[in-house]
């Protein structure tokens, strides 16, 4: 492609503090409209804001986890514009002295690291919700004032895939920090993108368009891809790119111009006189740093080291904090034996079961000690792999019973004892002369067919490996 893609992402994350940024209203989601508001977040005349100390702590936690330089002296500013979801017609945000700047995170594309600089991370307040009708709009101020973190990347992402990776990596880190639900559907994570194209080798950036209204990471990727195509086509025809805001239309799978009179907004930022400035001491920074847990990448590398997992497997297990914690509990419960098997079970059968139940693996509520037992029993061939990952696992999930009980109750103990199996094998050989013949004349599939017949006759309880050995021995 003769054009280089340049993408910058602006992510807004709702912090899961108990109360709003500047008042004591609850931040609980989904309440009756306009039932979670007060004079402060409603911007009633005479009301004044007071900053939530946990919002500040959470913001610092994210800033430090993203390797930012924390501003020792930081303040809030008013961003002035008129909109019905903004009760004061200004938003308390941060302008020239934001909480933190100059951070970075690394994304990994096909194993290779790429360093993405983060321009700034700052705190601000959320606006309300608008419901659009034909002739009017309805306003609900419950969401007004919930603390938001704005995370702005430098325009260093060069493909939709990189953008996607950036978002998943960022989300993962923030989840680990336990400061937000990061749920795009609920609106606790939002993303806007800026994208432009430039000719390879040229320094100057092209005209950028801003993309909004993407409600999932996939939508971000799709929107970017559409926009890359659109801009490429325009540039190919010698048409200029208009600097504008475009909305992603999920249904039609295209970006659409907002077509508003694109006057550059003059926000008339000035220091918020109703809030004091904030001085972040070194002690505070150290205190926050201590509260940062092992982050996803570190955990992944450690899983690879400690449990001998592949990067692929380790990445899956560390993809969510709860999942990783559950995995570690299972490893501990096994005294670090069968690590690879346990990992495989967590990534394979348990993940499938979780998917079927529309939940996460830890929500299946299987006790680590019991998973370990099941894995052990399969590895020792007490029960077949197939039975273990289907019948036993399902029973464990549905009834909460332990694996040994289930295996006994359902009579699933695998028969591995050759003397017990000899008779059945003999019978099958006698009943399947044709297949026996096929086997002896070198058609290898016949062996598996005969194994299958033994499995049938033993109601699945025969150990297939042992059966194979017996067959080979008897048919020599």
């Amino acid at each position, binding site marked *: 492609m003769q054009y280089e893609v340049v993408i910058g992402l602006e992510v807004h994350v709702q912090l899961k503090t108990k109360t709003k940024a500047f008042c004591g209203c609850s931040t609980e989601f989904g309440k009756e409209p306009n039932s979670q508001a007060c004079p402060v977040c409603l911007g009633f*005349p005479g009301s004044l804001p007071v900053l939530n100390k946990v919002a500040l702590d959470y913001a610092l936690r994210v800033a430090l986890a993203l390797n930012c330089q924390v501003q020792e002296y930081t303040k809030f500013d008013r961003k002035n514009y008129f909109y019905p979801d903004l009760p004061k017609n200004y938003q308390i945000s941060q302008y020239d002295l934001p909480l933190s700047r100059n951070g970075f995170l690394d994304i990994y594309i096909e194993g290779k690291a790429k360093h993405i600089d983060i321009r700034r991370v700052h705190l601000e307040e959320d606006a309300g919700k608008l419901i659009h009708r034909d002739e009017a709009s309805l306003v609900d101020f419950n969401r007004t004032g919930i603390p938001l973190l704005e995370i702005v990347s430098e325009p260093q992402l060069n493909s939709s895939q990189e953008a996607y990776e950036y978002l998943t990596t960022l989300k993962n880190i923030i989840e680990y920090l336990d400061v937000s639900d990061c749920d795009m559907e609920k609106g606790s994570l939002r993303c806007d993108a800026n994208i432009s194209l430039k000719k390879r080798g040229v320094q100057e950036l092209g005209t950028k368009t801003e993309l909004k209204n993407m409600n999932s990471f996939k939508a971000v990727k799709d929107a970017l891809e559409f926009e890359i195509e659109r801009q490429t086509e325009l540039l190919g025809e010698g048409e200029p790119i208009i600097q504008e805001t475009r909305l992603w239309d999920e249904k039609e799978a295209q970006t659409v111009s907002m077509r508003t009179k694109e006057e550059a907004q003059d926000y008339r930022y000035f220091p918020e006189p109703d809030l004091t400035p904030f001085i972040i001491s070194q002690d505070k920074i150290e205190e926050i740093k201590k509260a940062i847990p092992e982050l996803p990448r570190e955990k992944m590398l450690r899983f690879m080291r400690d449990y001998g997992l592949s990067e692929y497997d380790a990445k899956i297990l560390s993809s969510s904090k709860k999942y990783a914690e559950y995995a570690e509990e299972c490893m501990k419960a096994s005294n670090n034996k069968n690590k690879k098997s346990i990992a495989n079970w967590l990534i394979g059968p348990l993940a499938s079961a979780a998917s079927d139940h529309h939940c996460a693996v830890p929500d299946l509520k299987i006790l680590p000690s019991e998973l370990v037992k099941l894995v052990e029993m399969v590895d020792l061939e007490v029960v077949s792999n197939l039975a273990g990952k289907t019948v036993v696992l399902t029973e464990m999930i549905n009834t909460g019973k332990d694996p040994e009980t289930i295996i006994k109750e359902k009579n699933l103990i695998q028969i591995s004892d050759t003397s017990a199996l000899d008779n059945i094998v003999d019978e099958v050989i006698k009943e399947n002369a044709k297949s026996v013949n096929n086997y002896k004349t070198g058609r290898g599939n016949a062996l598996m067919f005969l194994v299958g017949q033994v499995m049938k006759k033993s109601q699945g309880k025969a150990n297939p490996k042992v059966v194979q050995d017996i067959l080979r021995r008897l048919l020599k």
Partner: protein
Amino acid sequence: MVMERELYKLTAHKLIEKLNKEEITSQEVLNSLKNRVEDIDGKVKAYVRLSGSPFLNRTPKTEHQKSILAGIPISIKDNICTEGLNTECCSKILEGFKPPYDATVIKKLKEAGAAILEVKTNMDEFAFGSSTENSFFGSTHNPWDLECVPGGSSGGSAAAVAAEEAIFALGSDTGGSIRQPAAFCGVVGLKPTYGRVSRYGLIAFASSLDQIGPITKDVKDCAILMNVISGHDPCDSTSANIEVPDYTKSLHNDIKGIKIGIPKEYFIAGLDSEVKTIAEEAIDKLKDLGAAYKQVSLPHTEYAVPVYYIIATAEAGSNLARFDGVQYGFRAQGTGHRAQGLIDMYKATRGEGFGEEAKRRIILGTFVLSHGYYDAYYIRALKVRTLIKQDFDEIFKECDCIVTPTSPTPAFKIGEKAADPLKMYLSDIYTISANLSGIPAISIPCGFTRKGLPIGLQILAKPFDEEMLFRVAYAYEHNTLWHKMKPKL
């Protein structure tokens, strides 16, 4: 023995004494005041929406008589939020607004046993003004000369106290709005140190300059009120966490050795000659009482007004953006107002709902913050503000207080300055610097012009040194009779 009918004439502290002793009841005080208002407010027009609301809905509780404020009614400026009672900043755009909460000062007054009057006092719309001529409800008249303005923006409160149709009152001061009307009306008015009194519930004009303060018949009443309303408020991030002394303890008539600074920049051309003479006599009186004085300089005085009109309008423009017809107040709607669509609704509502001065200040404030002008105006003004504050810091290294006339002129005639906004702005020249520097200041009556208009003397002190203000003000008052004189109405 004071007749019940005449109870309205007494100071709050005198009434408290009688109420505590149960010589009178708070109902009697209220009745007396109500009758007085009915008698003369038609001439003075200190109160707004008088016919619209009951004077005081709730019967004063007898148990309050033993409390600090003993059930005495207090008159509140129309920009201080009182739960369930109309609070409209004397503006059309806030018509009908009933706040769902009490300002912190109102809470404190209630806890101290005061009875909050339902009718509010008149003011310049959103406190934009120095004459109370910018009220949606029309002008208040100076009780000393009904053809003159009472000053502004707390003109209603000052006129009510002067005309004895308020026992005591609260006002707000952003550039002189308590002190200047107090001077024009011959009463006491104090602007606390910024952060001394909570701003929570004060409908904001300029957030870094506003303070609520008392307007009273004498210095003792002022001290009593300051005791009640001062103090840290966790709802106000800009309220200071500094202990409140008992201000009445500063009322001991002794200013021997106190060092007073007289800034030369306040006694130059532009100062009315009568005001000059009277102010100088007052300063001589302070000298007679034992104070020492020296001439000092506040070199950046002349820049205070331009600095103020940049900072105050910038903050006001932003603070008033919320008045848009969405959640409360006036909304322009229907075909008569051509409002179609949201932006038209905003523009029509604000175009019609705001008065001329309000529009002027909002637009000026928007301009000085706009792209390309922010550094030249707003940032520059913030820097000059630093210089103005430093001037005062220097003086207070050697002086305990500073004394000046409160206003360069006595009360002017209604309509005299209304057509010239700039002329009106310049009348704030002596009061504005105290707001820019955050220091406390009081105005006390110190004489009358030949035509019988009151003149005010302003005393300024270091941050959080209201005690100094009370000490000097009380000593002066105790040894003069200005505060005892009342207008003939």
